[in-house]
């Protein structure tokens, strides 16, 4: 009846998720993130370093948790990543957004779409129609139900990681869980 001390990922990683790394990796790291959040920006190279270090021992999943009231570009950036995902380039756009967090206006997003050689008219149309808003909202809802209270929030093998998210801390937590 009460929120539990150990927050668990709901729903678990599934076919709809954006995934890097093998399905049978001993450790799965899920991040709920916001493309405009500076702390997520800090976490971005940490996750890259973890992936480098752990190789196929790690599966990484990203879910959207745009804090739209605090970050005016977050929702559109999340929809842009999903629109790129619809063209098979979710991770390319994900990286582009985190590497350019201070340039997330509509024209910037189009510039990134061009740089990634996406079908730009389709990308622009899907953003204008908010074709991926429901998907982003689903991620957000699942985050709320999983105990995501801010960004970034990480889950390691389905359990919320409440400690710091520097490389050493995450690595230690992952090694303990795996």
């Amino acid at each position, binding site marked *: *009846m009460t*929120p539990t001390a150990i*927050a668990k990922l709901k729903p678990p990683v599934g076919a709809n998720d954006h995934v890097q790394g093998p399905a049978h990796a001993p450790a799965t790291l899920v991040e709920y993130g916001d493309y405009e959040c500076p702390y997520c920006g800090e976490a971005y190279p940490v996750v890259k370093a973890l992936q480098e270090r752990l190789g196929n021992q790690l599966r990484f999943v990203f879910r959207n948790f745009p804090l739209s*009231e*605090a970050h005016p570009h977050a929702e559109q950036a999340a929809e842009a990543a999903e629109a790129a995902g619809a063209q098979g380039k979710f991770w390319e756009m994900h990286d582009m957004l985190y590497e350019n967090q201070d340039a997330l206006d509509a024209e910037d997003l189009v510039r990134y779409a061009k740089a990634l050689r996406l079908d730009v008219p389709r990308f622009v149309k899907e953003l204008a129609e908010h074709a991926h808003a429901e998907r982003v909202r689903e991620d957000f809802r699942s985050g*709320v*139900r999983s*105990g995501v*209270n*801010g960004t970034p929030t990480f889950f390691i093998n389905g359990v919320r990681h409440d400690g710091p998210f520097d490389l050493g801390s995450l690595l230690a937590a992952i090694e303990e869980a795996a």
Partner: protein
Amino acid sequence: MATSETANKILAPGAAAPDFALHSTPDQLVTLSDFRGAPLIVAFYPADWSPVCGDQMALYNEVLPEFHRFKAAIVGISVDGSWCHTAFSKDRKLHFPLLADFEPKGAVARRYGAYREQDGVCERALFVIDGNGKISWSYLSPVGVNPGADGILTALEELTSKK
């Protein structure tokens, strides 16, 4: 966490929610009866501006559309004055009222069992009140922990499924 000493004191499900009339802004009064007919979430929290509370209220601000799916409204209550609430609310761009349990200090929180005598502030306590003014769910969080929104949404789901 010293939760056990206080864990049972907040009003429990089934109790009638004590009425209140509190200022949300210096010239606006909000009463419990304003919300009759639909669920109301009441979130007592220790103070404006402190980081965890900021997080909690900011989170509820983002989750508002989910609360609205259940036709539920939300108010935050702390012992801060209405001018302080106005400034905090503006800074965080909050779209729900923060009520000032300011004079007599903490009087409403006390009636809900959600006052921290030793600190002179509200507990971090959540209540879901049904459309008839009855408490349908309550939760006392450790004061330093953001309780999130999951418990509230589960309570709203249960309230809706009972109808």
